[in-house]
């Protein structure tokens, strides 16, 4: 895809996600039509950016950073604790549609890792216990 097309795609995809909370299949097909691309190409491009969802997500989106700084601060322990607690693997949504768990790249707070985000809220220097505590309050 051309750079300009990618920009247009990103803009439209953001709008769609704001409306539906994710990018439904028929919208992908429409994007494909508008940009004269196959729906596989659009799907691939959306997958490239971790901020887009092509399936409905849970009410809360939990993001845990595993880039190098956070990783050095044991982000994997946080991740394991959260996975155990939610019984979810990265990329999955819980059956009750409450939580979607994501492992993401650097969130820009490398000095204060590990970092976990609940929707737009950032939690820094988080311990496994604290992470679970925050989530337990959301039930």
């Amino acid at each position: 895809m051309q750079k300009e097309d990618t920009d247009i795609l990103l803009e439209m995809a953001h709008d769609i996600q704001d409306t539906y909370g994710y990018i439904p299949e028929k919208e992908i097909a429409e994007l494909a039509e508008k940009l004269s691309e196959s729906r596989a190409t659009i799907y691939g491009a959306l997958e490239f950016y971790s901020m887009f969802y092509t399936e409905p997500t849970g009410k809360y989106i939990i993001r845990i950073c595993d880039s190098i700084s956070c990783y050095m601060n044991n982000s994997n322990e946080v991740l394991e604790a959260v996975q155990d607690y939610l019984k979810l693997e990265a990329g999955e949504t819980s059956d009750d549609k409450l939580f979607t768990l994501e492992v993401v790249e650097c969130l820009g707070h490398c000095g204060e890792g590990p970092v976990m985000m609940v929707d737009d809220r950032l939690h820094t220097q988080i311990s496994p216990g604290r992470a679970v505590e925050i989530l337990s309050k959301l039930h």
Partner: protein
Amino acid sequence: MINLTVDNKEVTVEPNSTILEAASKVNVNIPTLCFSDDLTVYGGCRLCVVEVEGSDRLRPACNTRAREGMEVKTHSPRVREVRKTLFELIIASHDISCELNCLICNRQNSCQLKDVAEDIGISRMCLTPGADEERESDHSSHSVVREPNKCINCARCIRKCEEIQGVGVFAQASRGPETKVTTFKDRGMGNVECTNCGQCVVSCPTGALHEVYHMDQVWESLYDEQKHVIVQTAPSVRVALAESFGEEPGTIATGQMVAALRRLGFDRVFDTNFTADLTIMEEATEVVNRVTNNDNLPVLTSCSPGWIKYIEHFYPDYLQHLSSAKSPQQMFGAVAKTYYAENAGIDPEDLVVVSIMPCTAKKFEASRPEMNDDVDYVLTTREAARMLKSVGVDVCNLEPEKYDEMLGVSSGAGDIFGASGGVMEAAVRTAYNMITGVNLQEIEVTPVRGLEGLKSAEIPVTDDLTLKVGVAHGLNNAGIMMEKIKAGEEFHFVEMMACPGGCISGGGQPINTERSWREVREKRIAGLYDIDENKELRLSHENPKIQKLYEEFLQEPGSSKAHKLLHTEYVTRGVPGT
């Protein structure tokens, strides 16, 4: 013109040529992987890097233009070292475990990784294969299997499907080391708008894409005493099979192939060309009727199953334009399980019909419910070659033998079905006779021949009728043709073939890693026209065995019996969400 040196040899090239092109002019072979002469340049694998005097960075030869005065070093110590490292990284991503051992890989003798390893003199392999997780193979399709463990992310399949086929089944998703080639929402090839054409298979440099094998089932039938196993061979197989045994593309090996298949154990060896003649009888009858009644023109051909699935997905509003005639493969199945079984006194239950096809989509076609299992198994040309090798049959050195007569006699019109424009030419030869009662003076319809993507011709038939015909091959061209038709361009009859060049370069044909696509296609096509030219019988309606089949069994072309057995229907598929 631009003058430069490649490895100290002077060379002059056209403006805008790449270093790769310049090098090949002086016979310097630069290893490439993601490059393919029929696709746009991708520049992803970097194996083709070269050193350019005065520049620190190494440049990819496939993606760098030759400039005046350039001094290129293609095999300097630095280049060779970098290439080896890159290759190791690529191999590490191409997970070779014991299970994926080269000895059992489908690309045993056409693996481009092996070629490149030889070209760059690989003598070490330090990196361990990379895939931490076993990536699951995609078995969702009737025609093609994808084994992502062997994928090196060269994007050739993506470009082939998009640029040449206009379908766009694959895309790259995710990024960095997680980058993978996948289908829409990981659904698998069998659950998206894939046409089963197999062009991605013949584009892949590795064994990551291959056909769904029917070899085991065929072996089982051959070993089963209860079964009467017959085989049909498509037109294009005879000009390609010999390639798997080291011969040039286009080598005609009809008689040797027949002899070889008898040795393999088939009870009868028949010819799909016979039913190609039958297809012409039915299709030409339909064309004549529809042209006379101005009924849903243009008539679109229906023998390429990749094209059928394409129109079902992308132009379902035009399904009523398709000829209702089944393809030669399926007509063969229908005739074999009725006429042949009756005559030979065989219970159709005990009769196994195998086809050898240049095509992967034929596997899907045979499985369509409308075709009620008339054809039991479909082997690609490659599978047939593997089976023959495994029993030590040296095809090319056998004494030629003849097809079994009943369903084995064919006209040259049947042979040329395998080349783009051939079905049209064959149909015109017969339709002309059906309308005028005499044969064409000049039976070779040359404007519809050749590798031009879109072709057309006007054939004067009577004072009031000049047949306007069109031809497209490669699905992207078929799409362009459909747009023309939509926009109102008028044709009586249009031939559509899914694969570029027609069946001769179908997705089931031998994969030639040494020659350009154009050369391979031209030679195989030349082989087919050669056969036609040298045949006494060149018109489908003059085939005595076809005439006999109508007399004894089908009555006449277009009869209700013919309709029941030899015609079919299509399915609106669309693309979900559009």
